[in-house]
């Protein structure tokens, strides 16, 4: 076939040049006569409210690809929300070619293109990069009488390029909060029925809807973008119907957040970086249960740091204050009963003498019995320090809340260390061990021991719940997951109202 790609922006290009092809087309035209298009056909998708997504041109191929990916994701998010239908790509190209008069692309180019496309909104995306971050600025502008007041700008940054489109998409999803479904009546019939420009795509299905302000609308048939309806009372001169349906913003944001989290864990996770070709989960468990106890038995405190080598950290440095705290705690576990008896009581807990009361022996057994907790906490503290400084995420991070709760269940403060909250972890550790020790010492002293045990149970429960609910403290992770709420933006603008009145605007936006 003598057919080649006909770039839309090149005037005069012919797709079919040969006479044979023209003849074939004529023949086909005749053959296809029954399929000829009716001029009065309504294209359902053309009646829907529209958005045009533009990108500021870039020459760098990687930025070009990011531009394209971001635009596509934003269009998908608009589609998912079901309020503004993204303009088709070939139409955008055409409109840009029509409105692009000079060398440089200006804001006027996009607004003119959006006007040509009859879009209610248009979005302009501009991406850039620095050595550490990728940035994107997204502007959304309304057009026409209904939406002209909409003017918003978002600035997004991420160290993971793949997260840029997702973060932009999340803002678009949140932008839809509160935009309820309002459909225009586009055709009326004699029998009281009417066509509206909303259908399955907007979340409608056949059935009866109560509408705000009283009355009901019954959708008799629903297409993708259009529905046949009748209402009670009849619509009269009303031009549009407000269904009051909200888009599924929470669901959309949750799905996007899950995707951002997946990318972030893939980028920082131990299993996809340092332990790429190994079973990271196994090494983490083995490090905690086998390597660390062995290391601590040989060299209490510093052994915990040495055991972290099992997870293959590069250029790792120990956290000296953490080591000091863990060694001090270990010494307390080991020597407190001896010190409490002035060094006269037998050093070993299983030996009891006249200087060691029964209560003291119980405390002694408790403190020696909980030395493994000290080892584990020392190890998790060093791990948390290394995860912070080397910017890695621990294994099982996809299920971090469950894992943190489990860690807190088996180790005092374990879940807090797992999520990087070292100080909180130490606080829970000292509190639980102290309450446990007090309970053991006072077990036969009235209700004191039991009350202390109850208090320990309550603290343990709080520890578990707190660990499950608290967010991770790893800043590199939070940077990706959280919305950028710190930026303040100054906006200026000029537009004309429907009455051709010039309006100048200036706004200071601070998200909170």
């Amino acid at each position: 076939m003598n057919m080649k790609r006909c770039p839309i922006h090149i005037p005069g290009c012919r797709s079919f040049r040969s006479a044979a092809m023209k003849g074939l087309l004529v023949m086909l035209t005749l053959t296809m006569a029954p399929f000829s298009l009716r001029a009065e056909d309504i294209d359902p998708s053309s009646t829907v409210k529209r958005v045009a997504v533009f990108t500021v041109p870039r020459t760098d191929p990687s930025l070009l690809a990011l531009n394209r990916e971001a635009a596509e994701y934003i269009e998908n998010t608009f589609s998912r929300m079901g309020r503004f239908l993204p303009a088709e790509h070939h139409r955008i190209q055409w409109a840009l070619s029509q409105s692009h008069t000079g060398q440089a692309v200006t804001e006027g180019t996009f607004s003119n293109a959006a006007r040509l496309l009859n879009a209610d909104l248009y979005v302009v995306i501009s991406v850039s990069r620095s050595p550490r971050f990728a940035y994107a600025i997204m502007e959304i502008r309304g057009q026409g009488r209904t939406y002209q007041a909409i003017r918003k700008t978002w600035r997004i940054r991420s160290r993971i390029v793949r997260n840029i489109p997702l973060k932009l998409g999340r803002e678009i999803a949140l932008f839809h909060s509160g935009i309820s479904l309002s459909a225009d009546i586009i055709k009326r019939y004699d029998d009281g029925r009417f066509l509206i420009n909303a259908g399955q795509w907007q979340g409608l299905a056949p059935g009866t809807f109560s509408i705000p302000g009283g009355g009901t609308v019954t959708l008799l048939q629903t297409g993708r973008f259009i529905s046949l309806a009748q209402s009670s009372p009849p619509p009269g001169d009303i031009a549009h119907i407000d269904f009051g349906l909200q888009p599924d913003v929470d669901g959309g944001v949750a799905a996007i957040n899950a995707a951002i989290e997946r990318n972030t864990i893939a980028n920082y996770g131990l299993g996809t970086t340092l332990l790429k070709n190994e079973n990271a989960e196994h090494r983490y468990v083995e490090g905690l249960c086998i390597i660390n106890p062995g290391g601590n038995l040989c060299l209490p405190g510093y052994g915990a740091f040495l055991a972290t080598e099992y997870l293959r950290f590069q250029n790792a440095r120990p956290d000296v204050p953490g080591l000091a705290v863990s060694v001090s705690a270990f010494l307390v576990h080991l020597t407190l009963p001896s010190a409490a008896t002035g060094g006269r009581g037998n050093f070993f807990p299983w030996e009891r003498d006249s200087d060691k009361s029964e209560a003291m022996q119980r405390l002694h057994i408790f403190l020696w019995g909980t030395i493994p907790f000290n080892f584990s906490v020392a190890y998790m503290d060093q791990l948390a320090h290394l995860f912070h400084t080397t910017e890695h995420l621990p294994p099982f991070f996809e299920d971090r809340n469950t894992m943190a709760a489990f860690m807190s269940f088996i180790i005092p403060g374990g879940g807090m260390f797992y999520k990087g909250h070292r100080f909180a972890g130490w606080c829970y550790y000292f509190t639980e061990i102290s309450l446990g020790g007090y309970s053991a010492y006072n077990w036969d002293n009235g209700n004191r021991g039991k009350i202390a045990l109850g208090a320990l149970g309550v603290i343990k429960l709080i520890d578990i719940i707190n660990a499950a609910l608290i967010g991770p403290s790893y800043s590199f992770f939070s940077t990706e997951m959280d919305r950028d709420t710190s930026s303040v933006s100054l906006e200026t603008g000029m537009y004309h109202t429907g009455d051709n009145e010039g309006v100048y605007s200036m706004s200071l936006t601070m998200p909170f």
Partner: protein
Amino acid sequence: MGYTAASKICQLPGAPKPRMKKIIFLLLLCLIPAKDLFASKPLAGITGIQSDSARGRSIANLLEMHLYNILRSTNSFNQIDTAQMRTQLVRFDCLEDSCILRFARRADIHLVLRGTVRDMRNSMEIEIYAMGTGAPYFGARIYRYHVRIPVSRLSLSTREFSYICEEHAGRFISNLLHRYRFPVPFIIRGNTAVPDYPDPLNGSFTVYRYDRSPDEGEPLRSYRNAGTVHLKNGTIESLAPGTPQPGNGDFVLLTYEKKSQYLTDFYRGRKRELVLTPWNVSDTLYIMLFTAPASASMPLVVPILGHYARGDYAGLGLWAVNAAPYLYLEADGFLNRPQKLREENRDISRNDAARYNFALYFCFAGGMSLFVDAFAQDYLHQAANYQGVQPLMGNGLSTAYLSLICGGGGHFYRGHRAWGYFYFHLNNIMMYYTLREFSRAERYNSATDSYEKEPVDTTRAYRFLGAYCALKLIETIHAVLLDDRIENGELVEEQTAITPAVLFDPEGNLAFGIQGTMRF
């Protein structure tokens, strides 16, 4: 031509539409044979599966191929060549749903299949959906299938990917056919209205009639139920009372549920053949012989060699939580066994006796279910991902045996963990109390230096036994009737959402409510 072409496809005011026609013409060149175009079987087209990586592209190609082949195998559709159609749509940059629907509507393509394959590194997400043109869909999505398939820590070559794509394509087409309705119009032949369909239709159908003539160019034509017609060999046998004689344009909706069921059964059977061994008695015999050692070694083997070694940490956590109370009972039963109490001349309560009997049961049979869970999950995971033929699995007789001798064993064997734990607890609780009812307390009489046994309420005990037998019967039947969980991938359920809603009515008053959203 460039600008003009764009304006035409864009349908700008006053612009004709030859560009769209051109697409249609080019595509119609590819339609399978021209005669079929005018036949009444629905015309289906796969407009391409998008992908975002090289690996995704190969999966998309496989998926397209299988979708095409399976659709063809149903012999229910005329089809457009997928590659040609995709090439032309890409060439003309007609890739959005709205553009494709416009094209399909004008080309009289009844069913459009589209999809995407997203590479998530550790998994691939496949989303396929179908849209219908004309009544009763008018462009609406008929069915959407979204699945996440694992690809990490598996040995997957082209052959396995092909199997996986075929499975998902089969499931998608089967579910689609279950929902799809095709409007078969009546035409007047001679003086009689007959359904315009190549195959003779039989059975009772609802007749629908459009409210308006087709000349009005509406994108959505309302229709209504006009009555019921009984067809035999493609002709009207009778009309239900009150049903007018069908005329030109009236139609019935044809369903494909039988073909859907056939496809479901076919692909389920095919997968079993590929990944499970044929049914045989010897497998069950081996399991019987292995029951006692497996159950006895469960407390050590299951957490270490089962869940941990296979990376099933969720299973490990579930095992720890669920097994703990019974392991305690088992340990207590053995440590305070009646023989030991007798040596110490202590009384033996019914609970002591029941715990010992339960310990024996749990040691030699009851622990088998958790042993099965630890290994079956992994075997079925391998089977689901086409990692070779899995031994000992998929055997109905083994399922029945495991259900009978331990709580939830059959369900764990089939891969239904939640049901397994449900029956595991129910069985163990019932078993313990049944044993307790049959157990006799023994009081030590120091005067005679002997034990006196207390009587047992046998009626009550047999009631417990009857209830336990009923439970085992229900459990066994349930387990045998279930399918093995060997489906590949995990369905991504994000189609429905229920959220609170706060609205303002026109008077500005707050209105609170709950809204449900279903995503198509």
